[in-house]
């Protein structure tokens, strides 16, 4: 009985925190009007959405995809090609293509998943990389993508001072959408099945979990926000090239962000992307050296592996709840928003080496 009020209080606190975070995100571009800052914010939001979507599949199932850039590129190219083919004029209405791009990414994810998900562990990782490179090659070589000369996307003639804002809010919408998917999936029948698959796939099958269908559904679902992010990226930049739309760095970044924040949690990928992408963009602007962040990324990656093998969020919340437990000597409530349920066996090392369960 004693726990009930504290849980309700925790829930209110969480709802309050969420509302405050949303309020900050909504007024952000109105307060920080510097286009450099809002542009960094747009990229950051796109990565927050992508890392969250990646986590919906890889974080929940333990199948590490290094091929989600396929969906990003597909979304970007769908946007650019449709805009070019149909001579669409720039403006807010072009954003209507964003969900279409997300659906296109899902369509690509179906055969991709059917092939890749026949395998597990290392083989799965390798196949996702292979499929990704096939798509990059296609973008380089197909007529419709115009190869390495890329595609120009119409640019709206909005005032330079507020130019970034529509992109910012659409990206924020994708983040909210991806987070909602992640949140509701976590609580759903499918979500539970995905977590069971991560623990012991064969055992789950022996308890009637249709593992094939469950994995494919999660894979396809996780492609949706990534494809949408790709479309916004194409529109925002005004032009796309194969090596940037289908970028191996995207794959690595998304994984690193999720690892950094806490894999399998809802808040982890958001936090990881928020910190890492804004940092990266900042460095790029500061030192106008496009590759410096690679060094920083490498260093960070090692630091996370060594110091925070479970990511920031689980480590911090564990520390807090242990402290709370010590104070009140009451059992600490488990927080499914930030906790990767129970003791994790999925260390980043296990994941990158494909040994994750």
């Amino acid at each position: 009985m004693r726990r009930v009020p504290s849980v309700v209080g925790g829930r209110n606190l969480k709802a309050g925190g969420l509302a405050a975070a949303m309020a900050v995100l909504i007024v952000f571009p109105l307060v920080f009007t510097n286009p450099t800052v809002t542009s960094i914010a747009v990229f950051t939001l796109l990565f927050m959405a992508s890392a969250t979507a990646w986590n919906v599949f890889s974080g929940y199932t333990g199948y590490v995809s290094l091929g989600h850039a396929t969906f990003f590129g597909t979304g970007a190219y769908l946007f650019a090609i449709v805009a070019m083919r149909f001579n669409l004029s720039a403006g807010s209405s072009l954003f209507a293509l964003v969900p279409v791009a997300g659906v296109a990414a899902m369509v690509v994810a179906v055969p991709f998943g059917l092939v890749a998900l026949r395998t597990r562990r290392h083989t799965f990782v390798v196949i996702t990389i292979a499929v990704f490179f096939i798509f990059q090659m296609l973008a380089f070589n197909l007529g419709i993508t115009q190869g390495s000369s890329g595609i120009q996307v119409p640019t709206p003639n909005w005032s330079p001072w507020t130019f970034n804002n529509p992109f910012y809010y659409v990206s924020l919408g994708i983040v909210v959408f991806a987070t909602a998917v992640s949140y509701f999936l976590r609580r759903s029948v499918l979500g539970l099945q995905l977590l069971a698959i991560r623990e012991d796939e064969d055992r789950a099958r022996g308890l009637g979990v249709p593992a094939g269908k469950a994995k494919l559904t999660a894979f396809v679902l996780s492609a949706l926000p990534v494809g949408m992010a790709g479309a916004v990226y194409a529109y925002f930049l005004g032009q796309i090239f194969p090596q940037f739309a289908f970028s191996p760095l995207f794959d690595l970044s998304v994984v690193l962000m999720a690892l950094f924040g806490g894999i399998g949690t809802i808040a982890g990928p958001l936090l990881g992307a928020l910190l890492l992408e804004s940092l990266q963009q900042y460095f790029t602007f500061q030192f106008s050296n496009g590759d410096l962040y690679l060094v920083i990324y490498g260093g960070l990656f090692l630091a996370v592996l060594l110091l925070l093998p479970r990511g920031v969020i689980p480590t911090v919340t564990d520390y807090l709840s242990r402290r709370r437990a010590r104070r009140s000597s009451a059992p600490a409530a488990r927080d499914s928003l930030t906790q990767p349920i129970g003791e994790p066996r999925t260390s980043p090392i296990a994941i990158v080496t494909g040994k994750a369960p």
Partner: protein
Amino acid sequence: MTVILEARGVSKRFGGIHALDGCDIEVAQGTISGLIGPNGSGKTTLFNVITGYERVREGEIRLDGRAITNMTPEAVFRLGIGRTFQLTRVFGRLSVMDNMLVASQHDASWARRAFRKAGSHGERAKALELLEFVDIARLANEPAATLSYGQRKLLEFAYVLMADPEFLLLDEPAGGINPSLINTLAERIRALNKEGRTFLVVEHNMEFVMGLCHNVTVMHHGRTLVSGDPETVRRDPRVLDAYLGGVGEDEEADGADGAGAPGAPVSDES
């Protein structure tokens, strides 16, 4: 007597090892049947073949007369065959309750239910009831990884029951369980059997098997050696031979779980 499960001429090889070598077995509907045999005689492998974890090229498995050979584990489960593992396989990072709920999502209407909230009121109530049945309900919110080995065995037993299987295959259910709980476990199995469920139980604890089972099949070298009621099997000299031969042969391979124990009661009798 109707036969619920039937295996005919099932053979399974791992490299040079004939884990199953033309194995035949019949389980009568509504019975508790025992499956015993020395270490390495192929009991677990037979379970794996029946439940779709191993594929075979030779032989046939029938459930209620219908061939189920080489079906997937999920399909076999949906037909009403539940199974526990010799080395427990619970979902360590999920809570005990979530472990139970994983097993309740077995219907064919998966696509309709996949996006609903996991664990309806009814399912949770049923899960709690089953956890109480095996006496671990107080651990419902703990991660399964924190359970002791015996508690995990009980959890496996409980979550298999979530889907109301007609037929249960238990691989050494008493192994690692607190001796004071073994009688309770036998009681539980009997109670479920009274409800009409059929059991096939692999177990090295002879007292447990002989006291519980209506019928016992002995396997040796991947084949059925003897089958009959516990008394007949106990008296059969071939069984003793198998175990005596088996003890020396298998001691170095697997001394850990209850080797020695199987031999003793049998030799006492004859």
